[in-house]
C-alpha cells in the first residue's frame, strides 16, 4: 500500500498505521475539542401527540428502521476492544495504570479504586461510565454483540444501538440493552440492581426474564436470578414483600403474607409488577395475581384466566398490552426476536 493510501486509511478510520502529520495535528488540536456539559434545561410543557391515525405507518417504518439500524451497527462494529479514558484518579487496565486514552482488549479487566472513575466508549454503540470501586471485564466486542462483565461496583450505561447489541453479565443475571440508559450495581455478594432512566432493559438468567422500563428498578441475586421489576416510587411495603417472593425458597412461610401485601398495596401503575408475577410462583399464587391484575387494568379481550395461568404466550402478551406503557409499541417490536431466541 502506498504512503498516500495508508495516510488516507488512517484519516478515514483512525486505524492502521498513523500518518505522522495527521497524528501530530490530532495531538495539537485535541485541546480545542468539545469538553462542555449539557446546559440546565428549563421545564417544557407536557405535550401529547395525536398520532393514532399514523401509528400503523410509523410502526412499519420503525420496523424497517430497526432492521436497517441493526444491519448498520453490525457492519460498523469494530473489533479489537474498546477505548477507555480516566474520568478521575488512576484506573487500571490489565493491571497497568492509565492516565490517557487507552484500550480495553477482549479478556482484559478494568479496575477503579475508591478515587478513580473511567469512561468506556463501547465501539460505536454507546458509552459506559465505570464508577469507583468497580471491576469490569470485556468479554466480547464483535459485529452484533458487545458484552462486558460487571463483577462488582457500579456502571452507568448509555446505549444508542438498536436493541440486543449490548450485554452486561453480572454474577446472577445478564442485563440486555433494549435501547436505553441505566445504572447497574453489583455488590460483593453478587447481588445486582438495575435502575433504568431511559428506554428498557431486560434482565435474564436461566430462562427467567424481567423487563424493566424507564423509572423502574429490578434486583437480582445468585441462585435466584432476576427478581420482579417495580417502579422506583412503588410503596415500600410492596418492595419489601417482593424481595421475599423473589429471593426466598418456595417453602418460606412468609410467602403468602408477602403476596397479600403486594396485591393490596399495588397501584394501577404497579400492574407492570403484577404482570411479571403472572408467570412466577405456584398456580394458586398466579391465580390470585391475575384476579388482582384485572382490577388494576382492563381484562384483555378474548383471553381466559386459565390460558394466563397455563403460561400461554399469547394470553400473557395480551395482558402486557393492557399495561398502557408509553413504549409498548417499541416493546412489541423488540419482544419477538427476544422471545424466539
Amino acid at each position, binding site marked *: 500500500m502506498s504512503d498516500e493510501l495508508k495516510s488516507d486509511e488512517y484519516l478515514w478510520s483512525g486505524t492502521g498505521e498513523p500518518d505522522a502529520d495527521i497524528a501530530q495535528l490530532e495531538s495539537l488540536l485535541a485541546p480545542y475539542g468539545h469538553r462542555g456539559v449539557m446546559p440546565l434545561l428549563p421545564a417544557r410543557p407536557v405535550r401529547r401527540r395525536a398520532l393514532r391515525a399514523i401509528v400503523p405507518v410509523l410502526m412499519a417504518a420503525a420496523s424497517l428502521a430497526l432492521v436497517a439500524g441493526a444491519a448498520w451497527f453490525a457492519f460498523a462494529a469494530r473489533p479489537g476492544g474498546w477505548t477507555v479514558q480516566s474520568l478521575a484518579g488512576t484506573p487500571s487496565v490489565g493491571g497497568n495504570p492509565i492516565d490517557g486514552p487507552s484500550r480495553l482488549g477482549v479478556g482484559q479487566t478494568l479496575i477503579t479504586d475508591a478515587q478513580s472513575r473511567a469512561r468506556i466508549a463501547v465501539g460505536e454503540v454507546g458509552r459506559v461510565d465505570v464508577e469507583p470501586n468497580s471491576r469490569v471485564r470485556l468479554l466480547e466486542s464483535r459485529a452484533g454483540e458487545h458484552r462486558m462483565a460487571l463483577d462488582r461496583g457500579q456502571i452507568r450505561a448509555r446505549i444508542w444501538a438498536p436493541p440486543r447489541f449490548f450485554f452486561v453479565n453480572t454474577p446472577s443475571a445478564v442485563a440486555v440493552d433494549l435501547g436505553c440508559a441505566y445504572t447497574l450495581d453489583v455488590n460483593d455478594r453478587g447481588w445486582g440492581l438495575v435502575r433504568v432512566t*431511559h428506554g428498557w432493559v431486560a434482565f435474564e438468567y436461566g430462562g427467567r426474564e424481567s423487563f424493566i422500563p424507564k423509572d423502574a428498578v429490578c434486583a437480582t441475586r445468585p441462585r435466584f436470578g432476576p427478581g420482579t421489576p417495580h417502579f422506583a416510587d412503588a410503596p415500600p411495603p410492596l418492595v419489601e414483600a417482593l424481595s421475599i417472593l423473589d429471593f426466598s425458597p418456595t417453602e418460606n412461610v412468609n410467602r403468602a403474607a408477602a403476596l397479600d401485601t403486594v396485591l393490596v398495596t399495588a397501584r394501577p401503575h404497579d400492574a407492570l409488577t403484577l404482570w411479571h408475577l403472572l408467570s412466577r410462583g405456584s398456580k394458586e399464587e398466579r391465580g390470585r395475581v391475575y384476579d388482582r391484575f384485572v382490577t388494576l387494568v382492563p381484562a384483555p379481550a378474548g383471553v381466559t384466566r386459565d390460558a394466563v395461568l397455563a403460561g400461554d404466550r399469547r394470553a400473557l402478551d395480551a395482558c402486557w398490552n393492557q399495561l398502557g406503557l408509553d413504549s409498548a409499541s417499541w416493546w412489541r417490536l423488540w419482544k419477538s426476536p427476544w422471545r424466539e431466541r
Partner: protein
Amino acid sequence: MRNVLPPVDLAAERAADVPVRPETARFSGGQAAEDGRLVLAARDGDRSAFELLYDRYARLVHGLLLARVSRDEVDDLVQDVFLAAWRRLDDLRDPAAFGGWVAMIARNRATDFHRRSADLVELPDNLQARGASSARAEARAALDAIRSLPEAYRDTLVLRLVEGLTGPEIAMRTGLTPASVRVNLHRGMKLLRDKLGR
C-alpha cells in the same frame, strides 16, 4: 466487520477538486429511528432523552461552531444551540431528522454571531497567556488554516482532527454519505498540508 470503504480514486479526485456535497442528507436508519424516539420522549419533557441526543450530537455542534467562530465563544454557543433545540423541539417536523436540524441551528447561530459581533477579533494564544508554548501557537495556526478552507472541507476536518470523530462517525452524524466524507477528508487534508507547508 468494519465499515471500511475502498480507497478513494485519487486520480479521479484530481480531475474534479471540489468539495463533495450531498443532494440530501441521509442518516442511517437505526440512528434516525433512535433519534426520532428520543425526540418524541424529549418533547414530552423527558430530559434524559434529550441528554442522550446531546451526547450524540454535542461534538458535531461544537465542531461546526469551532469551524466558524472564535473558540472563546464556542462553548457558550453550544449551550445556546442545545437550549434552542430543547425549546423548539415542537417545530421539528420530522423527529428522525434531529441531527440535520441541530446542525442547521448551529450554522445559523454562527451566522448570527458574526452579524452581531463583526468587529470582534479573536485573540491570539500568545496574548492570552504569557509564556504560551510554541505548540499552542502551532495549534492555533493549524486551526486557522483549517478555517480558511472551503466549508465542506473545513467542517469534516474539524470534526476529524479536533473533535476526534472517525469518518464513519462523521457520516453518521452529518447525514453525508461515507463516500462524500471520505473524499472531503482526503481533499481537505491535501489542501491543509499545502497551507501548512508539510
